[in-house]
């Protein structure tokens, strides 16, 4: 694990720079993890619209697969609730 900075290595005040999210992962709170059943997913994008984070996106490929970024997903379960065909399961984190 990365060593955290000492008090005198931190900027004055509590400063967060832009793109800090690429360093600070916030997806460690999860109790339940949403898992998409790709055999049933129609790529309708409803979960992308509803994700409050937002951490669900459609891959920039021809296929356009819908993926969840688990580095930031908090496990709120809104995607599973809103999925029109109920193809997202909330699975207990190991």
């Amino acid at each position, binding site marked *: 694990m990365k060593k*955290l*900075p*000492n*008090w*005198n290595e*931190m*900027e*004055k*005040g*509590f*400063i*967060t*720079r*832009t793109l*800090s999210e690429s360093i600070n992962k916030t997806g460690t709170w999860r109790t339940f993890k949403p898992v998409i059943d790709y055999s049933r997913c129609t790529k309708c994008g409803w979960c992308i619209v509803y994700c409050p984070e937002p951490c669900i996106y459609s891959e920039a490929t021809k296929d356009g697969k819908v993926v969840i970024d688990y580095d930031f997903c908090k496990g709120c379960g809104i995607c599973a609730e809103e999925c029109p065909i109920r193809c997202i399961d909330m699975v207990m984190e190991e």
Partner: protein
Amino acid sequence: MQAVEPLLLSGNLAIAYAVKQLDVDVVAAYPITPQTTIIEKISEYVAKGELKANYILVESEHSAISACLSAAASGARVFTSSSSQGLLLMHEILFITSALRLPVIMAVANRSVSAPINIWNDHGDIMPQRDTGWIQLFVESAQEAYDKIIQAYRIAEDDRVRLPIMINIDGIVLSHTYEPIYPISDSEVSSFSPWNLYSTRLDPDNPLTMGAFCYPDYYFETRYQSAKALRDSLPIISKVDEEFGKLSGRSYGITSPFKCDDADTILISMGSISTTVRATVKKLREKGEKVGMISLRLFRPFPFDEIIKSIKNAKAIGIVDRALSPGAIAGPVFTDVTSALYLSKMSIPAANFFVGLGGRDVKMNDIEIIFDKLKGIAKTGIVKEHSHYIGLRG
């Protein structure tokens, strides 16, 4: 230093005059007695175009300090002022200002707190702000208030410090009493306290977030960092006072010990009452009494070493508190001084004297009563009762 014509100003007007000379960018405040004439005068300067500042009319003190904090976060030089209930309403934002390391300057005209409503002077409003992480200065005169406002911007904007500062003036006693003020020129002010634009500020070209959500793994370090900066600011505050002395001929020191070297009894006090104590010490010295005094001009960071150095030869010390700390062992200043004694392995008998609450006059006679009690303690070395309420009926 060239000879200047004095101006006849009250403590509040002297502060307003300094703020104008310091060319602040943003002023946000809400009126409350006895501070009101500071911001009233500043609004007049702004209206007349003598001070080019953004004067924000806010609906409460909570908004006033929030507006100042935000303006300071963008790099502006700011000023606010409050008293009593207004200062209490600012309370939660005071912690944020110091932790975000924003150099907000506030003049506090010290006044008692409700209930009952009382508009006169004591230190009841400032003591609850003790642990907010601000530098806290106390002054004895309107001239000193003027001088300290100028010094405050230089200290607060120093990159090694970067902390907010409260300049405490005793309400009514200093805020509304007129005295001759010897100002320094506008150019001297701007060269002594030049606007120091710090690098960490809100800037659209280089975006950042201040004080966002923080996990347990960062909170401790952040709070420690600002507390450490407050402790470390002491020599810088002292140096700025010395340098101001070279410029203006007026240097005050941090604790200003008076006749302490050979004194048997020493009284420690803060604010305008120290002038009365000094006069009493002079009077008692003429009678051959070995008395001394300390005017505590810096309350936070607490000048631990400076006090110990001055009182080490005393046989008894008295500490004046102008606010009650209900349920505590004694008053807030007493608690700090006696902690310093304990940590220095010194066991000088000490007694706490509560005086002048809610603006009750403290006269030389009261100070003589205190020195008399201290003399008794010095003789026996025994403190029968450590809290004395001078002038309390019953």
